[in-house]
């Protein structure tokens, strides 16, 4: 006992008194007590599942783990891990025969073989299913974007009184539904959306561009879309009063978030009905629109279809031109011209073509695998996936049953959403047709 007392006394002299007393409060003997900073250090290294469970250890641990500071610490450690597995987000029906009875599922598969090239999704992990949303909703959820482990999912019908938009963190299996937006689209363009993270306010934002007028074909004149923003911190939609960007975007345009901004492919009007191909950016901190120039050779091309994506964290796009008939190759239909990447952000001259490829008809670009191959979904072959790169190409048959919709993303473990109150969808959603 004397030795113990002496140890306590000397520790009070040499250590920070406050941490010692705080540590002593919960422990039986000095030797058992780990200081709070040490406990935080240990916990910040744990996977999300363990942390969710360890909230039950004690009230102090529960409030520590749910605290914004700890969530940020854990996230920083997670982000600094160099290896993030890729994941596939799938939305599909089970029990197809009768639409009314079909169970709609939204599932995330993780690629566990993150070190092996060429074995893309050979060993998917057990799936994580999206829970906590109304299963009677028959809309497909599309992946709008993801940041810090938070996925933003929405269906294309998302509009006032219709559709669904969800923020989901699969690592803690928590999802919240967004409230109805304020703006209603009409006409054939309807809307485009984008999702991103703003570090200064530590907030997640969804930006929605809504087109209301179909008269955009008037010579050189575009009716700009209306813009509204949802932020996680406020939990509400807010319209931007400044005029929207004078660009034309295709319906549900592809988007990527990088460099603090959401990017979409678009067209800027020139005189006499001509258009210039551009990439529109929306800075989530300043909430201002800007423009990123495209390679000069493509700026004036008509009927250019552009899908923005990320390759190794760099802004990239896949562009295709329609109906190039090449009988001598026995290929027809959509043809991918090339994959371009912007080596230096904002510097138009740094656009570099990665590779030229011709393949047959395809529906959609899914994404880029870690080994630098583009993954697309072939049209008409039961929706099979096809991957191609500079030196390889071929069908990719995943050991996952054929999904209706599929997206490729990067998986990050985090506790984001843990301290956000559950929001149950308060409105009745109309059953509508599949989109």
């Amino acid at each position: 006992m004397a030795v113990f007392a002496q140890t306590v006394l000397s520790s009070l002299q040499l250590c920070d008194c406050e941490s010692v007393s705080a540590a002593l409060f919960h422990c039986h003997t000095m030797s058992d007590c780990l200081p709070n900073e040490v406990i935080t250090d240990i916990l910040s290294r744990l996977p999300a599942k363990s942390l969710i469970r360890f909230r039950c250890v004690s009230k102090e641990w529960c409030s520590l783990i749910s605290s914004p500071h700890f969530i940020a610490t854990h996230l920083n450690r997670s982000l600094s891990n160099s290896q993030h597995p890729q994941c596939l987000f799938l939305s599909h029906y089970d029990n197809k025969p009768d639409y009314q009875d079909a169970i709609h599922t939204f599932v995330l598969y993780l690629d566990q073989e993150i070190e092996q090239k060429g074995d893309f999704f050979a060993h998917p992990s057990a799936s994580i299913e999206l829970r906590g949303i109304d299963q009677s909703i028959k809309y497909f959820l599309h992946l709008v974007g993801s940041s810090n482990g938070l996925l933003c999912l929405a269906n294309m019908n998302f509009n006032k009184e219709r559709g669904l938009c969800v923020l989901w963190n699969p690592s803690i299996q928590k999802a919240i539904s967004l409230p109805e937006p304020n703006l209603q689209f009409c006409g054939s363009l309807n809307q485009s959306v984008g999702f991103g993270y703003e570090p200064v306010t530590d907030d997640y934002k969804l930006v929605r561009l809504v087109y209301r007028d179909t008269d955009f074909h008037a010579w050189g004149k575009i009716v700009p879309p209306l813009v509204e923003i949802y932020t996680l911190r406020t939990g509400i939609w807010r319209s931007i009063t400044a005029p929207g960007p004078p660009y034309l975007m295709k319906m549900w345009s592809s988007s990527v978030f990088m460099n603090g901004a959401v990017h979409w492919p678009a067209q800027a009007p020139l005189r006499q009905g001509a258009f210039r191909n551009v990439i529109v950016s929306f800075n989530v901190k300043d909430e201002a629109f800007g423009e990123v120039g495209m390679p000069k050779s493509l700026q004036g091309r008509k009927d250019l279809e552009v899908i923005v994506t990320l390759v190794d964290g760099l802004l990239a796009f896949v562009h295709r031109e329609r109906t190039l008939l090449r009988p001598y190759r026995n290929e027809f239909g959509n043809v991918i011209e090339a994959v371009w990447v912007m080596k230096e952000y904002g510097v138009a001259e740094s656009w570099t073509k990665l590779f030229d490829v011709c393949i047959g008809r395809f529906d959609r670009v899914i994404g880029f695998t870690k080994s630098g191959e583009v993954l697309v979904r072939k049209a008409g072959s039961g929706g099979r996936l096809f991957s191609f790169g500079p030196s390889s190409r071929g069908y990719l048959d995943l050991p996952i049953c054929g999904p209706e919709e599929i997206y490729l993303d990067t998986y990050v473990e985090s506790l984001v959403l843990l301290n956000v109150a559950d929001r149950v969808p308060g409105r009745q959603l109309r059953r509508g047709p599949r989109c």
Partner: protein
Amino acid sequence: MANNGENPSPDVGGKTVKLKADDGEIFEVEEAVAMELQTVKSFFDDDGVSYDTVVPLLNVSSTALAKVIQYCRRAVELRAKSGDDEGANEKAREEREGLEAELVREESDEGIKELILAANYLNIKDMLSFLCRAVGDRIKNKSVEYVRRFFVLENDFSPEEEERTRNEVAWAFEGVDAD
């Protein structure tokens, strides 16, 4: 004065520093090794403190201090080996990881906690880091009860509160190691 087999022989060149553990045992270590312990470094950074002064480390047991010294000695050696050469760096890194694994492998939970307290008190960043990682690995698949025992924590939830939380996140309790 104790003099365990790890101490340098008297005719080795270079300065040494004397560290005293909580039971009075004195460890004589090379200066470079002693400076790995930031607490010791700060002790000598004070003006007028001569290197002959014995540093009292009243919070550290002699068993823990012996292991700390052993680790720091190896760490200093490994750092001297690495340089600009990628290959040498890689090898040094692997050796350090092997050293860390060896240090924690045989340790009991009590032993690891003692080492963490020592590394924390002596302010040895790298050692504290890998020890925290090792503890993390040990507990990540364990039950709530195991963790309470490990950290010696009281459960201050009511049975109803605990039941409710467990039901809400039942998925997080799947696949947990049996105690």
